[in-house]
């Protein structure tokens, strides 16, 4: 008997190749191939296959327990601990996976969840606090501590905030070399902390800074990194970090594990995780480290920083967004959307089609190749709802869609789908909002 | 400016066949293609005939990306919810030498282009030819839309497809007229292979086709079709452009109309639309075939209106015309004579082949249907009604029923009218 591969289902992820105890599987041209002379029907590949492409003939496939994609983010601290966690907390033998981990820099105690707090130009990126909230849930699920890391110059004011948002410990490197963000010194600083204190999970926002410095750090540490996660969770059995992210342009979601190396690193999209409650006055342990390198060790220098004040720069932080699509038919019709946005104090955005038609700028594009937004209210005007657009806005708190096609995909993600002629509906909505908002602004 | 022996405008089956035969005869050959690569812009119903392709690439079926060998062809006549069906099946068509296969053009043309490259042809994609280059009255190359875009050639073969811009510019063809092109809309609908084989009563891997007349085109001059692919069904409908314009219909309207027919609906049930394609088909027939050659130039394939719409054959005519043109070009270049007279060998050889013989045979057909637009409305209805009357068991003695049928037929269309239609059809089609 040999494991059978359904080639139409195989996505070539290689999970089976890693899992097979007798090395009977290989990836050839992107598909799993079984060597029948080696296969001993262990069936481990069948269990691990994400798409059920593998089967041992004459053996009914075991129903796989579906992972809840929201496991981590929906975790409630007040819920009773699952048995697996209790086991773990009582130091039972659930640590096998951790024991297998190859330590990268001496020692073998990889423990704790770290959040790198992004502090540039005197501001903390809010995603840092969102991650402390998410990190709390992960740390509780594992049964370990939660720490924040601040690197930069003159960062004292940030420390109490990190405690207020839930960090138990805060690691700090404060040095003039770290004044402006540069990859080299930041990567060195964070790497040195990780090597010394060995956290098992390190998180950062998927901002331009997080996506710049984390790959550099992961390469230095020779460990795995998953970019742009939208859901995090902890596998109750193995305690591995389940890192879920959109792939193939957001057309599919993939859950990724880093099984054998530490730390497990992930960047997380801003505004996907909930902002935790801020408790001022909360205190914790502060650990300050020296930065041992000097300016001559680095080959880059920042000459200038030009603040850009474009509205669209804050698109990902907008509370209300009015977005337009090709249903608007012509640039001159932008006026009806602008009027609605004006009344609501909303930010204007658009689909790829609207941007390519020249009605809006590239940085106003919502979706896969544009910005991911999560406003309180998202009003989609004349947008059909191509999947590339949906991935950029479907986590909005409330979605209102106006489209004349009742079958349009946008109506399927909308809380309110209004079917009809947008040229009549939008001005009517604007007029109604105006009536109610004459004594204040929308909130 | 780089010089070639033969430049071919367009990388469809006609152009690639011409390129292969020219290169095989030792000519330095280049194909200039508009699309990202040959095949991206190319659309057809999806049936490839074995004989013609075999002549260009012998035993192509062993390698080429094909869907299913066609072992059964059905003809259906639709009237409202009713339908009459006839069909022919030969399991021998499922083995070598096949008769025809269903294919996807994107895959097949790409493969054919690779065969051309193997034969030594250079293929330049994403490039538009703007005009022929002349020296005096002689054609000496082409001008492309790119910088430093002139290319020299001894012979240019125009295989630009149905949109015949260059052939028109060169004064060889007339611009397309709405009554001599058909517009076709097609969808590829994914279904599991077991379902396809069950629904069409096929052995594993075999394929079938259905041509649908009558209400499939809402009375317009045209035809609907259903072809089985490996894991999908191609369904399409085409009709002459003019009535679309007149009735303010889109090709998609016609396709949706066909898909809603009870018989068709059941075949497609549960499938998911994977692709939507639309294309023009040259339907001018023999009388509208352009001038096929001039000094240094030959016109092949769809550009030459080489299309037998009754038997829905096009790609085979295209490939044979391309093959012949490539051979004639090589002969002429080797002989050092690319005059109009030398090029006319191409036309002579086409006339001797089935290509122009078939077109000549059906030369009255276009006019016949044009003059009798009622044909595709009246007869499907009449036949369906007759069949229903004949087959309904309601206690009427059969002899009386037959009389009723004949009476019904003449009520729908006068005796004289029917005789005229039959005579017209006999002249146009036989």
């Amino acid at each position, binding site marked *: 008997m040999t494991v059978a591969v359904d080639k139409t289902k195989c*996505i070539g*992820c*290689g999970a089976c*190749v890693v899992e097979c105890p007798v090395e009977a599987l290989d*990836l050839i041209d992107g598909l799993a191939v079984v060597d029948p002379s080696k296969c001993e029907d262990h069936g481990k590949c069948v269990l691990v296959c*994400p*798409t059920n492409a593998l089967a041992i003939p004459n053996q009914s496939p075991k129903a796989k327990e579906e*992972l809840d*994609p929201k496991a981590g983010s929906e975790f409630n601290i007040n819920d009773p601990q699952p048995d697996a966690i209790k086991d773990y907390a009582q130091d039972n033998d659930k640590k096998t996976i951790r024991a297998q981990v190859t330590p990268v820099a001496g020692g073998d105690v990889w423990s704790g969840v770290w959040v790198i707090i992004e502090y540039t*130009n005197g*501001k903390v990126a809010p995603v840092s606090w969102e991650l402390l909230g998410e990190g709390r849930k992960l740390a509780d699920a594992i049964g370990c501590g939660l720490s924040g890391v601040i690197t930069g110059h003159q960062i004292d004011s940030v420390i109490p905030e990190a405690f207020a948002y839930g960090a138990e410990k805060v690691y700090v490197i404060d040095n003039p070399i770290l004044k402006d963000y540069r*990859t080299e010194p930041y990567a060195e600083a964070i790497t040195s902390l990780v090597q010394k204190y060995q956290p098992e999970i390190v998180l950062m926002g998927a*901002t331009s800074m997080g*996506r*710049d410095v*984390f*790959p*550099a750090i992961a*390469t230095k540490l020779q460990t795995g*990194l*998953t970019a742009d996660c939208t859901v995090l969770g902890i596998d109750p059995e193995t305690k591995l970090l389940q890192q879920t992210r959109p792939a*193939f*342009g957001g057309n*599919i*979601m993939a*859950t*990724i*594990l*880093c099984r054998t190396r530490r730390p497990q690193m992930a960047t997380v999209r801003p505004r996907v995780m909930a902002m935790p409650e801020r408790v001022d006055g909360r205190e914790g342990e502060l650990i300050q480290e020296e930065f041992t390198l000097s300016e001559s060790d680095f080959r*880059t220098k920042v000459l200038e920083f*030009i*603040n850009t004040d474009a509205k669209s720069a804050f698109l*990902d932080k907008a509370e209300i967004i009015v977005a337009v699509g090709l249903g608007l038919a012509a640039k001159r019709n932008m006026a009806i959307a602008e009027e609605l946005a*004006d009344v609501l*104090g909303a930010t204007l955005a658009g689909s790829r089609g609207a941007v390519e038609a020249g009605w809006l700028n590239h940085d106003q594009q919502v979706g896969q190749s544009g910005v991911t937004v999560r406003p309180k*209210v998202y009003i989609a005007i004349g947008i059909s709802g*191509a999947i590339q657009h949906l991935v950029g806005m479907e986590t909005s708190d409330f979605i209102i869609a106006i489209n004349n096609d009742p079958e349009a995909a946008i109506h399927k993600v*909308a809380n*309110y*789908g*209004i079917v*009809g002629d947008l040229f*009549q*509906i939008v001005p*009517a*909505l604007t007029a*109604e*909002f105006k009536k109610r908002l004459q004594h*204040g602004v*929308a*909130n | 400016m780089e010089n070639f022996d033969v430049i071919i405008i367009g990388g469809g089956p006609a152009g690639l066949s011409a390129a292969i035969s020219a290169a095989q005869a030792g000519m330095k050959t280049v194909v200039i293609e508009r699309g990202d*690569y040959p095949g991206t812009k190319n659309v057809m119903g999806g049936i490839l005939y074995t004989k013609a392709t075999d002549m260009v690439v012998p035993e192509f079926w062993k390698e080429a990306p094909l869907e299913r060998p066609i072992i059964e062809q059905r003809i259906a006549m639709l009237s409202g919810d009713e339908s009459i069906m006839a069909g022919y099946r030969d399991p021998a068509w499922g083995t070598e030498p096949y008769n025809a296969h269903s294919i*996807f053009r994107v*895959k097949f043309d790409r493969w054919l282009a690779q065969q051309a490259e193997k034969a030594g042809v*250079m293929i*330049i994609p994403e*490039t538009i030819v703007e005009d022929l280059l002349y020296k005096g009255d002689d054609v000496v190359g082409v001008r492309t839309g790119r*910088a430093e*875009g002139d*290319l020299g050639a001894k012979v240019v073969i125009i295989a630009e497809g149905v949109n015949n811009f260059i052939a028109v510019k060169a004064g060889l063809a007339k611009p397309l007229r709405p009554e001599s092109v058909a517009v076709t809309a097609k969808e590829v609908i994914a279904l599991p292979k077991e379902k396809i084989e069950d629904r069409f009563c096929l052995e594993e891997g075999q394929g079938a086709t259905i041509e649908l007349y009558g209400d499939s085109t809402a009375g317009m001059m045209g035809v609907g079709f259903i072809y089985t692919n490996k894991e999908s069904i191609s369904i399409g409908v085409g009709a002459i452009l003019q009535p679309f314009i007149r009735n303010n219909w889109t090709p998609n309207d016609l396709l949706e109309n066909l898909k809603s027919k009870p018989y068709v609906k059941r075949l497609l049930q549960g499938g998911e639309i994977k692709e939507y394609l639309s294309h023009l088909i040259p339907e001018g027939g023999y009388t509208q075939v352009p001038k096929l050659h001039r000094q240094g130039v030959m016109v092949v394939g769809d550009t030459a209106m080489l299309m037998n719409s009754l038997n829905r054959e096009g790609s085979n005519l295209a490939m044979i015309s391309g093959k012949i043109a490539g051979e004639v070009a090589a002969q002429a270049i080797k002989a050092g004579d690319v005059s109009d007279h030398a090029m006319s060998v191409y036309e002579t050889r086409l006339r001797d082949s089935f290509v122009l013989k078939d077109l000549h045979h059906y030369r009255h057909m276009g006019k016949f249907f044009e003059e009798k637009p009622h044909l595709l409305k009246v007869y499907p209805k009449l036949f369906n009604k007759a069949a229903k009357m004949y087959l309904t068991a309601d206690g009427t003695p059969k002899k009386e029923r037959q009389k009723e049928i004949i009476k019904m037929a003449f009520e729908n269309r006068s005796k004289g009218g029917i005789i005229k239609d039959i005579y017209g059809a006999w002249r146009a089609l036989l």
Partner: protein
Amino acid sequence: MNFVVCLKQVPDTSEVRIDPVTNTLMREGVPSIINPYDAHGLEEAIRLKEKMGGKVTIVSMGPPQAKEALKKAMTYGADRAILLSDRAFGGSDSLATAYILSMALQKIHETEPIDLVFAGKEAIDGDTAQTGPGIAQRLGFPQLTYAIKVRELTDTTVTVERKTESGRQIVQAQLPALLTVEKELNDLRYASLPNMMKAAAYEPEVWDAKTLPFDVKQMGLKGSPTSVSRIFAPPGRSGGEIFDATKDPASIAATVVQKLFQSNIIMVNPLAKGGKR
């Protein structure tokens, strides 16, 4: 100047779908393209070469079919294209991919020292944005990501505008350096016919696992710390309410707005006066 461009052939992600019933990836007929960001990196390298002289080498890793992307890339006017292709490279994650590419760049660097490496800011099929920085780290080159403008290139330094959320950072790095680029960097050219013909006749070099002294433990599945454990279709939203406003848009609009205020989805903030920004 010696320029190297890292380039990836990717499926056109706007055409990739997941079958909601079987949860499988539908790859049939999805066209392959040059990763759009990489194309802008290539364009910039060619422009700089045209200005300052030098050589542009394209390096890619992928299956043998990726040769087509390299041939297409050659139409821009590059001088050389190398495809890293071997079954042993298959299943590499971004860490292992960066290792393999950096080995190739190292090899080039030994004989013809590299001045500047270009890569796209990310590949549209993976969106990880990790391979470029990974290569820079392994080669010990400074990395400048999200470049939207090359302000100046001298024999020893490059000055670049980088895009960040709050503004543009102007950074100078010593050469050799690696840039990952945004689409704003430049407009792609329309290749000349001679370059099209050169590319059509060009056969990219193929390097396999034996060409260079690769460490098998650092590449392919074994060298990849991350692995996919599950894929699924993005969850849809349920329980939406549909309003038919085809007949009476005004009264439907009134109803919708009323509901929005009743359920506190939109509220009036009385502190700030006037409904304008």
